[in-house]
C-alpha cells in the first residue's frame, strides 16, 4: 500500500476535473492512494513547495509550470526523471510533443518533469451581449475580429449593449496581466527576454510600450474592469456583465457546468485570441508533473514507482483532462479522434501551433520576477499610475537586476 502525497494549484474549473481524475485513479488502484491538496496558485504555491522540499516535507508529486522550470532548477527543488522512471510510468519521451518535452528538460538535457498539457488563454464571449452587433454570425459564432480596431469596436458595441466591463480579465493579478501583456507583445513579434538573457532587446521596448498602452486604453475607455482579482474577473463574465473574457482554457469547465445547470443565463462561446497585432499567436504554458527533492533524504524506490504510475496513468487519461479545456501533451491522446471532436477545444485547437511559450529563463514563469513585474509594474501602469514608457523602463531595470 503506497500513499502518494499530491500537491496542485488547480483551483479553477479544471480543479474539479482533476479531483475527479484523482478519485478515479484511487478507485482503480487499491494499492496506491493519492492524497491530494490544492494550494493557492502562484507565489504561495511555489513558496510552500520550496520551503517544504528544502526541509523534506514536500509532496511526492506536484503539478509544475514548465515556464518556471529554469527557476525551479535554480532553486534546486526538482529531481531528475530517469529513464527507469519513465519506464515505470509506461511512458516514453516520444509520446510527447517536442516543444513541451524540451521545456521539461534542463540545459544539459536531463528530464525534470513529465509534461501533462498545453494551455493558453482564449477569448470567451457572451452571445447575448453581442446580439444585434456585427460580430455574431448566423450560427451565433463570433466573427469579424481581425485587428485591434475590430476588437475595440466590438468592445464598444457590447458596452452599448449594457456590458459594464466589455472585456474582463484579471487586471489586478499577476497571471491575468502577464498573459495578456505577453500575448500582445508576442503578436508584435517582441521578445521579453532574449536567448542570451537580455531583457526586452532592441525594439521590443517599443513593442512592450505598445502592449501596455493598448491595455491602458482599454482601461481608460472603461472596457476592462479596474483592478479585478481573478475570481472577480470570472464572476464578471459569468454574471453577464462582460461581453468578452480573456482567461485560460481552464475556465471552460466552469462555463460548461454553469450552462448545464442553467445558472449562466446566456449563451457563451470561446475562440482563440484573435490576431490583434501583427501575428497570430497566444501566450501558452504547460502543466507538468514533477517530483520535488525530499530535503536531505531520498524517496524510496517503491514510492517512486508508485508516483510514476500515477504520472503515467494521468497522461493516459488526459482526455478527461482535456475536458477541462486543456490540450493534452500526450500525443496518443491529443491525436485521438475523441479529442479532435471535443468542443470547444476544437475551436481553438489551432492555437497549439501558434503558441508563444515563456522565455526559458530563471526570471520567467509563474511566481517569477517576470510575474512580479506584471503585478507590481504593468498592473499599476495600465491603471494610469505611470506611463507605458516609465513602466517599460522599470520592467527592464527590475528584471535585468534580477538576472544577476
Amino acid at each position: 500500500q503506497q500513499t502518494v502525497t499530491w500537491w496542485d494549484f488547480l483551483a479553477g474549473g479544471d480543479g474539479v476535473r482533476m479531483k475527479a481524475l484523482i478519485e478515479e485513479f484511487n478507485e482503480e488502484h487499491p494499492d496506491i492512494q493519492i492524497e491530494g491538496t490544492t494550494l493557492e496558485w502562484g507565489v504561495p504555491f511555489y513558496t510552500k513547495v520550496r520551503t517544504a522540499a528544502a526541509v523534506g516535507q514536500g509532496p511526492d508529486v506536484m503539478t509544475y509550470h514548465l515556464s518556471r522550470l529554469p527557476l525551479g532548477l535554480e532553486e534546486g527543488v526538482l529531481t531528475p526523471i530517469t529513464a527507469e522512471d519513465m519506464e515505470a510510468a509506461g511512458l516514453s519521451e516520444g509520446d510527447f510533443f517536442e516543444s513541451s518535452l524540451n521545456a521539461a528538460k534542463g540545459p544539459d538535457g536531463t528530464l525534470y518533469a513529465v509534461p501533462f498539457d498545453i494551455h493558453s488563454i482564449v477569448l470567451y464571449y457572451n452571445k447575448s451581449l453581442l446580439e444585434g452587433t456585427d460580430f455574431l454570425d448566423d450560427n451565433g459564432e463570433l466573427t469579424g475580429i481581425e485587428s485591434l480596431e475590430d476588437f475595440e469596436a466590438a468592445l464598444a458595441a457590447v458596452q452599448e449593449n449594457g456590458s459594464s466591463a466589455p472585456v474582463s480579465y484579471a487586471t489586478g493579478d499577476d497571471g491575468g496581466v502577464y498573459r495578456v501583456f505577453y500575448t500582445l507583445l508576442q503578436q508584435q513579434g517582441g521578445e521579453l527576454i532574449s536567448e542570451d538573457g537580455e531583457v526586452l532587446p532592441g525594439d521590443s521596448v517599443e513593442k512592450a510600450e505598445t502592449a501596455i498602452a493598448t491595455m491602458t486604453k482599454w482601461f481608460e475607455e472603461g472596457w476592462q474592469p479596474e483592478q479585478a482579482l481573478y475570481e472577480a474577473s470570472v464572476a464578471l463574465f459569468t454574471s453577464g456583465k462582460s461581453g468578452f473574457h480573456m482567461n485560460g482554457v481552464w475556465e471552460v469547465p466552469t462555463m460548461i457546468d454553469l450552462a448545464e445547470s442553467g445558472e449562466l443565463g446566456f449563451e457563451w462561446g470561446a475562440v482563440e485570441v484573435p490576431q490583434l497585432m501583427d501575428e497570430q499567436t497566444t501566450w501558452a504554458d504547460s502543466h507538468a508533473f514533477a517530483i520535488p527533492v525530499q530535503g536531505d533524504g531520498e524517496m524510496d524506490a517503491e514510492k517512486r514507482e508508485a508516483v510514476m504510475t500515477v504520472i503515467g496513468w494521468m497522461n493516459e487519461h488526459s482526455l478527461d483532462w482535456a475536458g477541462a479545456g486543456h490540450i493534452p501533451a500526450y500525443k496518443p491522446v491529443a491525436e485521438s479522434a475523441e479529442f479532435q471532436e471535443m468542443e470547444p477545444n476544437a475551436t481553438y485547437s489551432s492555437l497549439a501551433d501558434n503558441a508563444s511559450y515563456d522565455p526559458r529563463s530563471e526570471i520567467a514563469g509563474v511566481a517569477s520576477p517576470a510575474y512580479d513585474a506584471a503585478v507590481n509594474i504593468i498592473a499599476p501602469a495600465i491603471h494610469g499610475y505611470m506611463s507605458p514608457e516609465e513602466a517599460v523602463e522599470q520592467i527592464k531595470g527590475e528584471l535585468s537586476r534580477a538576472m544577476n
Partner: protein
Amino acid sequence: MTTTRKIENTVLTAITLVAGAIWIFPIYWAFVTSIRTESRVVSESAGLWPDELNLSSYVDALFNTQLINWYINSIATAVITTAVVLVTGMMCAYAISQMRFPGRRLLYGVVLASFMVPTQALVVSQFILMNDMGFINSWAGIILPQLIVPVVIIVYKQFFDAVPKEMKEAVVLDGGGDYTLLFKVYLPLNWGITTALGIITFIMTWNQFFWPFLVVTTEDMMTIPVGITQVNDAFGVAYARIMSVALLAAAPVVIAYLIFQKKVTEAVMISSGVKG
C-alpha cells in the same frame, strides 16, 4: 431624572447600539453571503437581507476541505499551548514571587525584557531549529515557539505578590511546602486570573497565523486560520463558499465567546488591571 436627561439617555443608548450594529455588519454580511447561491451573490438585485437559505456552500466547505482536520489541529495545539503556558508560567511566577534563590532577579529581568521582544523577529531561526528537531509539520513544531508568553508570568507574579503573606504563613505553620502552597493555595486563590489568562492565551493561540503558516507545509497539519487561506478547493467563483469556510473557521471561538462572553470580558479586564 429630568425629561431632557431621559431623552439624552435614550438617544445615546440608541447611538451606541446602532454603532454596534454597524460594527458587526461585516460578520452579518459574511453570513448573508454564505447562505446564498454563488450566482445570487454576484447578482445586482441581491439586497441586504437574508432572502435565501442555501446551505450547499457549508456542505462543500465541510466535506470538500480538510476543515475537520484543521479543527482538530487548532484545538489540540491551542489547548496544549494554553495548558503548558499556564502551568510553566505559574510555577515560574511562584518561584519569582515567593521564593528566594540566586538568579531570581536576573530571571525576572529576562522575563520582563522578553516581553518587549517581538517573537516574529525570531521566525527564521526558530524555523531552522524546528527543522533540525524534525518538528516541521507536527503539533510540537506549531506549539513549541508559542510557549513563551512572558505576560503570563508577569501577571501571575503580580497576583501572587498580592496574596497576603498570612496565607502562606498559615500553610507553613501547618507544615505545608512550596508545592502544596502553589497548587493547593495560590492556584485556587487565583482561579480568576488563571481562567482569564487561559482564555486570552487560548484566543491568541487559536488565532495565530504567521508561525503555523510557516511551520506547516502540508494540508492535513494546518490550523484553521492557515488552512482557510492556503487551500483552495476547486471553487471557481466562490464568494459564498469562501464566506462559509471563514464562518465555519470562526464558529468555535465565536460560539465559545458568546457562551462565555462575561468571563472573556472579565478576563481581559483583570489581566489589564494588572498591567495598567
